[in-house]
């Protein structure tokens, strides 16, 4: 035997319009009515007061009126708004009306601005597993976060239940899903813990899928996050975002892409660092033994500029389609600029790039650090005009970066640093196979490019860049 549930609010003209229909139906079968505002609307003995929105929330009502048909406990159909044909089809009743057959419904009170997060806290707070920390009455919440050593040195957004619930609306992944174990403590990292740290970093919920995928990528064994954290070297994790999500969430891939001022760039990278700090316990002076670190260890995150590029993106090079969104994690040092304002021929500019890349880390350091070469649009134009593919540029750089052993051995150039003398007669490549990556980003004016050198332990013995697809929530 079918039974029915109807959710209405008096404040909705469509709900008021269909009162005669409600009266007709409630005479035919059991119709349980939930009213979101006035418990005396509509005048009917079966109305249940749902002004607290508990039922509306659990029934996932977005529009009123919504009528739901059940077979026992199982929902077998629902329709919303006033659509006479749909109501008749759902109920099997021929409805006698003297008003139009169609009127759109109104927004359920559960979808009022800001309401979803509040209701999530009200009704679903028990789903959150994290320990609750009560601050003292006289404590400032932002200072409380500093005092508990959660901060990277900048103020954090205090992670209240409401903010964490709102953050979690950015993904439809289970908040208890374990993404991995974060070094150095190998603390279990759930989606919820990532959300708490993303709140503190200042992320919007729509950034959360990028943060989760960044954490996933960082925790892949080949990325070697533990070693990257512990090293005395300059490096830290850099996040490159490719694909539609980078544009959807407004990431900066253009002017000042590696600088400040864009919320997504600034907070996604910060969130990853906070996960390492708080879930992993990785802190400077503790397991983080960096001599200098680099400013990117606050946040190192930007997008590739894929619009009107003559080259395929890094993600496409890695086998993803341009419709997929990805993060690529790279163990990165700070940025070194290359200024060449005169080269108009691709070989000349390639030689400039090679000269800059040659000195990354040390002019004699080879096969140690990978690098990202970030080519600006004005430099890219030189290759575009000449019809050079990205692979052609890579091949040419590979040739130009074959270095005579005599220049690399210890003592050469009066510098004690260098490789063993037995390599004097060899010619050695600067980068390991696949160790040089080229991407396009930056402002439209300026004949500059940028080198982001990598950790001196790049490659299989240390860290290799890791690319992961971003699973974008269908609800986000």
């Amino acid at each position, binding site marked *: 035997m079918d039974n029915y549930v109807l959710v209405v609010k008096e404040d909705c003209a469509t709900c008021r319009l269909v009162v005669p229909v409600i009266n007709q139906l409630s005479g035919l079968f059991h119709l349980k009515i939930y009213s979101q505002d006035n418990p005396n609307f509509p005048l009917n003995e079966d109305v249940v007061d749902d002004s607290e929105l508990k039922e509306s929330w659990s029934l996932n009502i977005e529009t009123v009126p919504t009528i739901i048909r059940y077979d026992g406990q199982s929902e077998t159909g629902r329709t919303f708004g006033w659509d006479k044909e749909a109501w008749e089809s759902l109920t099997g009743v021929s409805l006698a009306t003297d008003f139009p057959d169609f009127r759109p419904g109104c927004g359920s009170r559960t979808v009022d601005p800001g309401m979803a997060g509040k209701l999530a806290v009200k009704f679903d707070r028990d789903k959150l597993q994290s320990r609750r920390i009560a601050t003292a009455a006289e404590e400032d919440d932002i200072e409380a976060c500093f005092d508990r050593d959660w901060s990277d040195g900048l103020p954090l957004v*205090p992670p209240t239940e409401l903010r964490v619930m709102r953050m979690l609306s950015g993904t439809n992944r289970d908040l208890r899903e374990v993404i991995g174990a974060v070094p150095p403590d190998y603390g279990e990292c759930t989606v919820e*813990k990532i959300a708490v740290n993303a709140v503190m970093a200042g992320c919007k919920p729509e950034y959360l899928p990028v943060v989760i995928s960044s954490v996933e990528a960082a925790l892949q064994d080949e990325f070697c996050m533990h070693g990257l954290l512990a090293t005395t070297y300059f490096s830290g994790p850099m996040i490159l975002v490719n694909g539609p999500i980078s544009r959807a969430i407004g990431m900066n891939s253009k002017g000042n892409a590696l600088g400040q001022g864009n919320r997504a760039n600034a907070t996604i990278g910060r969130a990853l660092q906070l996960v390492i700090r708080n879930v992993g316990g990785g802190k400077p002076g503790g397991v983080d033994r960096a001599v200098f670190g680099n400013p990117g260890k606050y946040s190192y995150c930007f997008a590739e500029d894929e619009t009107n590029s003559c080259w395929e993106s890094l993600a496409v090079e890695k086998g993803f389609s341009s419709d997929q969104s990805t993060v690529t994690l790279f163990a990165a040092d700070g940025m070194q600029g290359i200024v060449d304002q005169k080269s108009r021929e691709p070989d000349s500019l390639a030689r400039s790039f090679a000269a800059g890349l040659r000195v990354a880390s040390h002019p004699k350091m080879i096969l140690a650090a990978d690098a990202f070469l970030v080519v600006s649009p004005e430099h890219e134009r030189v290759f575009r005009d000449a019809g050079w593919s990205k692979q052609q540029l890579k091949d040419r750089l590979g040739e130009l970066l074959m270095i005579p052993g005599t220049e690399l051995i210890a003592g050469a150039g009066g510098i004690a640093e260098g490789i063993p003398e037995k390599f004097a007669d060899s010619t050695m490549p600067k980068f390991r196979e696949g160790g040089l990556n080229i991407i396009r980003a930056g402002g439209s004016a300026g004949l500059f490019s940028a080198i982001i050198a990598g950790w001196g332990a790049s490659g299989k013995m240390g860290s290799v860049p890791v690319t992961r697809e971003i699973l974008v929530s269908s609800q986000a």
Partner: protein
Amino acid sequence: MSNVLMDPTSELSSEHREPLPRPSSLEGLTVGLLDISKARGDVFIDRIEDLMVQRGISTRRYKKPTFTRIAPVELTQQIATECDVVVESLAD
């Protein structure tokens, strides 16, 4: 207003914040002796200083302008810069 925050850590340590660890020995450390300017506080501090000097412990003396107010920031910064440990006297 008190608030409830969600712990962002892996919860491996207590939520109660512990005081900084106390040194097991004062050997090689500089001890600041802070007189808060309360009556006879100096008597106590003088005696502590005698006992420390007898044991070869390096000490430095400081004095708050008045016990009725918290220490000036300059004074707390000076003590933090110059000392490893501080002993503060409260006497009457």
